């Protein structure tokens, strides 16, 4: 059986601002299996966002293959939902209209759209904010709407590019729990970009540790702690220490 995503020997070369070339990724190979929650972690310049952009279909690799269900990725599509760091909601649409946006593109009837947006608003506990515009929502609420909007198409894979980097620590914790809840319920796969070790250990079933200049995979750490995880348990601490060490050596 083929993996959901296969990245085979992928490299990406970029022009820097002073017109020299830099390797964002060099010879990277990794698979994402059905139902996995993968966190890619690494310092800036390690190519983790480039990897996400290649899988999302926003950019093409300079060399190597990026496959989705065995076929080359041809561009962005509704089979891969994306949640960006921030400001990706449509500010002229309410929460409900943002969530209904993909269905409106497909010409889904108003009643069906409404039923779906009701369901997803309830899932993210934002029924009370259905008719508010993004400008009237807190950072955490906005990201919950963004997650719901990305999930309405029922994607096989959810790509998240440092989605909680701009929210405060308390909100961040509850957003992490919420994403895990949705993941367990809806059974999609996740590629989650972060630079926060604790976040990676709390969320993922597998951690990809990357290193910069050139962007490469340094180590892949499987995480077999059962969910829900206890951040204060010794096992959690041991894994944190392990990832931290790999990250810094």
């Amino acid at each position, binding site marked *: 059986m083929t993996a959901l995503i296969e990245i085979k020997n992928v490299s990406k070369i970029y022009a820097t601002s002073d017109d020299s070339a830099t390797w964002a990724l060099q010879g990277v190979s990794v698979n994402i299996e059905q139902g996995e929650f993968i966190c890619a972690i690494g310092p800036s310049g390690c190519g983790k966002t480039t990897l996400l952009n290649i899988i999302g279909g926003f950019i093409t690799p300079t060399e190597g293959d990026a496959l989705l269900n065995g076929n080359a990725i041809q561009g962005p*599509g509704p089979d891969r939902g994306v949640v*960006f760091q921030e400001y990706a909601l*449509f*500010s*002229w649409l309410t929460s409900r209209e943002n969530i209904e946006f993909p269905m409106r593109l497909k010409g889904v009837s108003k009643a069906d759209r409404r039923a779906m947006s009701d369901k997803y608003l309830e899932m993210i506990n934002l029924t009370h904010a259905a008719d508010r*515009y993004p400008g009237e929502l807190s950072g955490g609420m906005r990201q919950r709407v963004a997650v719901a909007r990305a999930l309405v*198409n029922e994607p096989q894979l959810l790509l998240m590019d440092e989605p909680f980097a701009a929210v405060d620590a308390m909100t961040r914790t509850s957003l992490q729990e919420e994403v895990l809840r949705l993941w367990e319920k809806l059974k999609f796969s996740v590629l989650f970009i972060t630079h926060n070790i604790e976040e990676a250990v709390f969320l993922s079933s597998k951690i990809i540790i990357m290193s910069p200049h050139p962007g490469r995979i340094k180590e892949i750490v499987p995480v077999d702690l059962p969910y829900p995880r206890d951040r204060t348990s010794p096992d959690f601490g041991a894994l944190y220490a392990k990832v931290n060490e790999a990250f810094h050596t």
Partner: protein
Amino acid sequence: MSAQTTSTQDSNNPDAAIDPSHWQEQEQSFLRKLNEEKRRKTISQLTLNLLGVVLFLLLWEATPHVIPWMNILLFPPPSDVVGTLVELVESGELLENIAISMQRVLLGFAIAAVLGIVAGLFTGRIALVQHLSDPVLHGMRSIPAIALVPLSLLWFGIGEASKVALISWGAFFPIWLNTFTGVRDVPPVLVRSAKSLGATPYQTMFNVILPASLPFILVGLRQGIGIALIVLVAAELAGASSGVGYMVATSHQLFRVDIMFIGIATLGFLGYMVDRLFTFLQSRIFPWYSSK
């Protein structure tokens, strides 16, 4: 043990002794004062506005009387102008001219808005179209619309077409340029979101790029309507037989400065009203724009 904890809490909490109705009273009196304050500010502001207008009229009235060398025919005081205004309103002449001028402005502006927004969308989104049209459009933008009045008369005659064409020409450029800037600067993350949600290029253009650049488009439309009013006058001063600009031009030949004053004031008033109407409609039609 638990009783002890409760009593400690009570002694630590200074609010416990105070009746909750106290806080309500405080709150209500605070809100009362706030409202009072607001109302007073509004009233004093309006009074000052009104006073300013009265002072201006008084100064105007006094000027030709106080300054001996001033010719009252060249500088008619408001008391004279008001009489003429009543005459012009009663004969219907003023309103008729306003109607004709506004018709020209709105038609010319509508044409400019459609062409300007479409041109902005294409030049802002498609690099080929942008670079192809860049030198020509920017070159044409630098031509003052007033310089085209004689050409427009030759091409379109002295009828409505020449006025509407000139107004469209003048209003097109700010609408195009602002739309272009807005479209070009739409955050890439919005376009990526749309694509990953399944939007076709056409859907991305109309459901994302257009609304995302709306704040810029509105600025362009507002500048465009301002220019439309300026070009209107230029077009009506030469080769027109109706309109507010024509009224000003003929009053010059008739040596009627009072009519001229009314025409000029009307143009100022129209510009002001159109601008206010614009801001009003904007907040009504695009509520999210103000909530940002």
